[in-house]
């Protein structure tokens, strides 16, 4: 108890220095809490960008379909798959799609693109097509309605009500087929590539256009728990992987994004490591200054029988108390700051990363481990930083220390 009291009081011999060191450690903790929260928020936005925009959290396709969107690679028994998904409690929604690589022409211009034939109701539970429709109206099931991306509409120089001709090759026969549509809505997902090259029509119009009686190319899935999509041993996906049908989560569908997300996690660790090194240098400096000021006292302490180990313990105890104090402030400030940005977000402007639009505010994520694990790291590292000064103090030779003070 006396040792604890001595260590605590020693901290406040030079209150200003202690508070400055404390602020340094506190700042590091706050920054690492915020950086981790931002990284989690960014990952969340990126994953959301992939899974909620159009792709879904998982997809069922014929093997090889996603490579070139070959129209012949359709799912031959979509009803069985749909039934399995509809009765699976883990699945929140699924949407069948026909995907046609086609020529899209207006009276003024022509462009190539992918036309998605979708079921308007099912799509509501998987993608955010309806939310992205900023002009006109969402698909209602009427045969000739088409939704165009904002940039495609600009390229084709069309607006609501204008005519669009879709030209595609039919499945199996490869016969060229054409169909007339009228622009009923314009959408904007954000990523340039999507807004320039995608168009949506009703599934009921797409299937006859392609000669695909009842068949679809893809079924997109949304889970009740988004984490299920990352589970490679999830029965929902395993059971659907049969023969030439593959059911993959978004991490397998977009491996490059998975890599990026992994890199983002390392970024937190790198920022943390740099901060901890800088903080450690500050702590070492502060502890050395404190020891140099008390060199006579350490000499006396050793003279009266304090062992080197007891001196090391005292210095480490001082560092431990300093870290505890810093962590108390750090947890409080970190929580307040992180909670504020969790509610209000950090303005990030508008940027696109790997086809994912990061738009508007980045919302940090507050997690309990940030206020347990990080303070433990900070405390351990502060104490570790004090080991060298503590060993120095323990090696002070009493006779020299006493002479120096005189």
């Amino acid at each position, binding site marked *: 108890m*006396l*040792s604890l*009291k*001595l260590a605590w*009081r*020693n901290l*406040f*011999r030079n209150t200003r220095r202690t508070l400055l060191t404390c602020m340094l450690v506190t700042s590091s903790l706050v920054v690492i809490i915020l950086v981790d929260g931002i990284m989690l928020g960014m990952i969340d936005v990126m994953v959301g960008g992939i899974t909620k925009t159009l792709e879904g959290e998982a997809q069922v396709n014929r093997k090889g379909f996603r490579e070139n969107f070959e129209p012949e690679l359709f799912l031959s028994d979509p009803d069985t798959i749909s039934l399995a998904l509809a009765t699976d409690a883990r699945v929140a929604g699924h949407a069948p799609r026909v995907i046609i690589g086609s020529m899209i022409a207006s009276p003024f211009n022509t462009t190539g693109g992918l036309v998605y034939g979708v079921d308007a109701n099912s799509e509501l539970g998987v993608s955010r097509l309806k939310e992205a429709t900023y002009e006109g109206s969402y698909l209602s099931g009427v045969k000739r309605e088409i939704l165009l991306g904002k940039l495609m509409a600009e390229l084709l120089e069309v607006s609501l009500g204008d005519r669009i001709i879709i030209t595609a090759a039919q499945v199996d026969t490869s016969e060229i087929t054409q169909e007339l549509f009228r622009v009923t809505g314009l959408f904007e997902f954000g990523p340039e590539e999507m807004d320039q090259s995608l168009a949506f029509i009703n599934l009921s119009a797409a299937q006859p256009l392609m000669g695909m009686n009842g068949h679809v190319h893809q079924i997109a899935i949304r889970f009740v728990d988004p984490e299920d999509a990352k589970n490679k041993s999830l029965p929902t996906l395993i059971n659907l992987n049969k023969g030439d049908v593959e059911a993959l989560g978004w991490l397998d569908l977009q491996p490059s994004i998975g890599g990026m997300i992994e890199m983002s996690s390392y970024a937190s660790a790198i920022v943390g490591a740099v901060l901890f090194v800088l903080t450690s240098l500050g702590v070492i400096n502060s502890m050395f200054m404190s020891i140099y000021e008390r060199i*006579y*006292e350490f000499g*006396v*302490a*050793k*003279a*009266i*029988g*304090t*062992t*080197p180990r*007891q001196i090391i313990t005292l210095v480490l105890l001082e560092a431990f108390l300093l870290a505890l104090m810093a962590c108390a402030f750090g947890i409080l400030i970190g929580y307040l700051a992180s909670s504020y940005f969790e509610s209000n977000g950090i303005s990030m402007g508008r940027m696109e990363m790997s086809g994912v639009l990061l738009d508007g505010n980045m919302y940090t994520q507050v997690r309990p481990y940030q206020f347990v694990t990080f303070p433990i790291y900070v405390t351990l590292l502060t104490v570790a930083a004090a080991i060298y000064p503590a060993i120095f103090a323990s090696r002070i030779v*009493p*006779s020299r220390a*006493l002479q120096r*003070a*005189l």
Partner: protein
Amino acid sequence: MKTVIETKDLVRKFGEAETQVTALSHVSTSIKEGEFTAIIGPSGSGKTTLLQLIGGLDEPDGGDVLLSGTNIANMSGKQLSDFRRDHIGFIFQSYNLIPVLSAEENIEYIMLLQGVSAAERKARVREMLALVGLEGLGDRRPAQLSGGQQQRVAVARAMASKPDIILADEPTANLDSTTGIALLDTMRDLNAQLNMTFVFSTHDQKIMDRADRLIHLEDGVIQLDETRQS
């Protein structure tokens, strides 16, 4: 009376080559249990060096120091720390109290190092404060005490561990003469009451008059060793 301190042919030199100074040259002496001994001599005569060597704070370049028959040269650092803690009490010129601890806590600290129980520590602190005449001032920090009071606390701390020997390096140097004499009288009383061995250095004539024995050092050599009637 048994011999508690014995030095044999002690040599201590500082510096190297042409700048080398011999602080102690072949000093041999012995001090018996319960003696109240003053090491006297002018500044630079080697008083502090001799006390530091006796206390195991410094290592000699030659010769031996035997405390209660044990040669401290053969001890490891840890053994020497433990020996100092349990057998030697130190009083230094500049009070040497821990400024952030109260007088009571300063006295208690050394007992904490010894592993004395909390109850016994408290009891012994009260006893020591009473012995040095500082009852009621135990909760004050060093800065709230006068120089004389601080040095009394240092005496109490030195005695709290129940050492065999108390070594005091010019304990009155920073005190006015009245306070210095009063402190010496306190040490003298404790020596008489507890039969504790006191060895202190001084160059103050009034202080040395209170010693039983005077060891005169000059240029690192014992010039005279006189025992007086108290």
